[in-house]
């Protein structure tokens, strides 16, 4: 379509603008969030029971957690890890009930 006068031709960038791809080497942070030991895990328990019922007698305790993979425009793995840890503390995990772990994959 020949760009029609008055029609903006590109959707505007959304908050906040990110770096163009060639300037932003990607790093992946993998944040694993689990309920703390001692916090009852109804989901894990239900999964364990379901597996036992399916005949998997070898299944003992089951814990269910979340995994969040973040693509980060960072070059330094240590900086990436520190940033992801901050995000986990601030938002991704509720440290009242959950613990987390951050791993960096290039």
């Amino acid at each position, binding site marked *: 379509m020949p760009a029609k006068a008055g029609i903006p031709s590109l959707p505007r960038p959304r908050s906040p603008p990110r770096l163009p791809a060639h300037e932003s080497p990607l790093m992946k942070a993998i944040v694993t969030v689990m309920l703390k030991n001692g*916090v*009852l895990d*109804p*989901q894990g328990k*239900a999964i364990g029971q379901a597996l036992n019922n399916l005949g998997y007698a070898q299944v003992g305790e089951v814990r269910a957690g979340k995994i969040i993979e973040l693509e980060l425009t960072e070059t330094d793995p240590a900086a990436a890890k520190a940033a992801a840890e901050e995000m986990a503390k*601030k*938002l*991704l995990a*509720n440290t*009242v*009930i959950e613990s987390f772990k951050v791993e960096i994959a290039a």
Partner: protein
Amino acid sequence: MMKAAILLFPGINRERDMQLAVRQSFGHEPAIVWHKETGLPAGTDLVIIPGGFSFGDYLRCGAMAAQSPIMQAVKTHAARGGYVLGVCNGFQILTEAGILPGALLRNAGLRFLSMDTMLRVGRTDTVFTNKWAEGDVFRAPMAHGDGNFTADSATLDRLEGENLVAFRYADGNRNGSARDIAGIFAPNLRVLGLMPHPENLVDPLMGGTDGKPLFDALAAA
């Protein structure tokens, strides 16, 4: 007369219910405050955080809303001794923001629970509960997937020891909440969070007026 403000986060869906209850008891419209605001309307006495699924509750219930700009203002308001009422998602947001202790986990049965429940009133010397008598039992609809209140035993002991349990489930604990807790106060008794919805029973056509004393009490404060 209290000046009330209802906070609106994207995904909140019981703001109209809350508006209706407040309008009916207060005789005037509450302000509606968008989550990206950084301040509350001047003269706000009571902040209400209604139920719903703020940000879809996609990470944890209330987690993302607790980080919204308006929550700084709510923290300041609470620290200054302002009144705050959080219902359902509002309760979850208050715990995620650290304004109330504990956390709300998935219901023990892992299913959404939508039904009436009976609540037993704890203390009645608060601005929220003074229209009830201690030990009163009243009906309130609940509608939540994550109402399983949890905290470490020291916190639970403290809540009980300081008489900060506002309501307990009186007809069976369906969601697995620790010590049957349905709602709690902050130590200054000016912040209340609870899972069930008194705002959904404030008119005979809704099936009863069991929840109305809460709003009448606030209106009279």
